């Protein structure tokens, strides 16, 4: 493959045609309908610029795709570019010197000025050098509500998490599941994260997750969070689905009152033909503390021997952050763009709420940025047990603090 690319590059140079036309294989795990359409925008833009995008989609989600990507990079068969969630997922690959340094591209295109919030670029930075190109922002702290389910129960749609919990018994009496929650561990952890920001507030969250103050983690604020989750798990007891989109489907079909899920759930509502504000309601930050954490996706570029390909990698990196590609890509994907200077007037109500929060600066770093995958996985294991069993809040709290300490 590599040899072929070299030969092809030499042939084109020899024939004196376009200055560059290089194949780059790009791996990612965007395989659902909306995601695939968004990737197609990236491929189209890259092909139009004269190079060639070879799509390397890996089905099965990040948990399946990342081991494959990592073993290809460490096993000496690197691809041209690969998706990761920005943060600590690729940190060790960068430290081992396997990733291309993009600092010159970033300086040339002024990423430091345009990338907003700046924490996105910080998550790509190791020892002052930039190693990834962020492409979108996803935030998990959203509560999605079915307007019809509340209409059936004869009560108004809640405007925040507290009202949601208070009205849950009435919803249950009307034969609905109050809270839809899939069985996968990461969903339990996501719901815990959203509830903790809503209940404990921003300052406490930052002290624990950014400043890593373990005394606060073990303190009464987080004890209250665990109590709130213990109350919430009773609301989700009848929700027995597995995947997140099946849980979202319970809300779409009005069988469930609401679901705590990231803004990617919006794509499911759109595909089902529902309209934000009419058929469903979205509450960022669960309607209590409207803060969004700024996780998302970024592209990393493994080091290749061939200077032709390295040049193509840098062209792709610059292209991904460019305003036109940002707009086309994020409108299709339903995610927020990584720069504040682009026009997204075509966005729907929920996306606009997200954009406003972003513009007003109510943002947090994501879990992938502040904790290692090891700590995240331990917490997922803990949270799925806590949500789906009768584990006491005190035990879960103590175990959670121990998990965080293992990552210090």
């Amino acid at each position, binding site marked *: 493959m590599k040899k072929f690319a070299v030969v092809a590059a030499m042939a084109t140079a020899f024939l004196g045609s376009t200055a560059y036309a290089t194949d780059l294989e790009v791996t990612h795990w965007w395989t659902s309908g909306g995601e695939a359409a968004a990737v197609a925008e990236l491929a189209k833009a890259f092909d139009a610029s004269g190079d060639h995008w070879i799509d390397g989609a890996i089905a099965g989600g990040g*948990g399946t795709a*990342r*081991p494959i990507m*990592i073993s290809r990079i*460490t096993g000496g068969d690197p691809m041209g570019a690969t998706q990761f969630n920005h943060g600590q*997922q690729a*940190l*060790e*690959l960068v430290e*081992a010197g396997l990733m291309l340094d993009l600092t010159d591209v970033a300086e040339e295109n002024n990423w430091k000025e345009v990338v907003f919030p700046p924490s996105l670029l910080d998550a790509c930075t190791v020892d002052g050098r930039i190693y990834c190109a962020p492409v979108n922002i996803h935030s998990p702290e959203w509560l999605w509500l079915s307007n019809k389910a509340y209409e059936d129960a004869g009560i108004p749609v809640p405007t925040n998490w507290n009202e949601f919990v208070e009205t849950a018994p009435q919803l249950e009496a009307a034969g609905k599941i109050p809270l839809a929650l899939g*069985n*996968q*561990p990461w969903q339990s952890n996501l719901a815990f994260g959203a509830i903790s920001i809503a209940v404990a507030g921003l300052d406490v969250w930052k002290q624990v997750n950014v400043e890593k103050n373990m005394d606060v983690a073990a303190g009464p604020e987080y004890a209250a969070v665990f109590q709130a989750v213990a109350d919430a798990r009773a609301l989700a007891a009848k929700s*027995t689905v*597995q995947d997140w989109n099946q849980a979202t489907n319970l809300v779409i079909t009005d069988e469930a009152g609401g679901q705590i899920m990231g803004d990617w759930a919006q794509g499911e509502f759109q595909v089902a033909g529902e309209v934000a504000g009419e058929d469903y309601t979205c509450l960022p930050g669960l309607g209590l503390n409207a803060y969004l954490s700024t996780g998302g996706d970024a592209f990393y570029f493994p080091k290749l021997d061939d200077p032709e390909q390295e040049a193509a990698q840098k062209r792709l990196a610059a292209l991904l952050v460019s305003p036109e590609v940002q707009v086309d890509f994020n409108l299709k994907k339903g995610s927020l763009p990584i720069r504040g200077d682009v026009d997204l007037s075509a966005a729907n109500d929920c996306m606009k709420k997200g954009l406003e929060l972003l513009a007003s600066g109510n943002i947090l770093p994501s879990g992938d940025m502040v904790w*290692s*995958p*090891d700590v*995240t*996985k*331990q917490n997922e*294991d*803990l949270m*799925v*047990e*806590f*949500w*789906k*069993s009768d584990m006491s809040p005190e035990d879960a709290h103590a*175990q959670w603090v121990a998990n965080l300490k*293992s990552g210090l």
Partner: protein
Amino acid sequence: MAGFQPGRLFRNINAKIAAIPMVFTALVVFVGGTLWTVVYSFTDSKLLPRLNFVGFEQYERLWSTSRWLVSIQNLMLYGVFSLVFTITIGFLLAVLMDQKIRFEDAFRTVMLYPFALSFIVTGLVWQWVLNPQFGIEHIARSLGMDWFSFDPLNNPQTVLFGLLIAGLWQGTGFVMCLMLAGLRGIDEEIWKAARVDGIPRWKVYVFIIIPMMRAVFITTLVIVASGIIRLYDLVVAQTSGGPGNASQVPAMYVYDYMFQAQNLAQGFAASSMMLLSVLIVLIPWAYLEFGGKKRV
């Protein structure tokens, strides 16, 4: 002993040369890979392996993790039930099959069919069969039995039995075939002698046939037991370890921590513990099987 015998080394030289690649593979891949894994389980390797030794730290963490403890408990419960039931049911089926019945080939084929399916397919099929909205409960209720409720997979207390049903469905046919082969290997003369002595059939099975089939039972035991220890795909397909952590198994812990948590050493420590449990099964077997022959 006549000291060094050059002739012995070169006897069957072709066979020995032919065996070299396999010997080499076994030593490098199996033994070498195993040793490498055990050595790195004493380090603090994360995404990439590195030799920074931390003693038994990974093992201490492993044995204080509730998910691992639940996994071990599940595996032991599943293992005991699965061993007892597959071997008992498999043997009983083989005995029934051995009564010179009609259509034996057809029955044998039907019984063995589930074994031809992968665990992934088995798991998915039984996930649907046991699902209250599509499966048994739905059928019973649509027949008018409204009181009927059967939902083992969504209850942490019963989820293991849901897995067990699927595991037994898949595995007993194979055990039956092994047992049937054993039964067919018993000399007809023994049956004739027993009939002359007027011994009841069940007594012949329990006191004569089963002891004579010792080798078949031990082989079956090892095959079934090693299958239990590496139980993974059935759980992934049927429950993904849920609800909560109620149906987690050790092999899932190894995969999740090596690849999703990017904590190689923790995964190595867990897989070394699995290796230890395989050895606990294998060593007595090897002793019985190969050590026993010398007595004859």
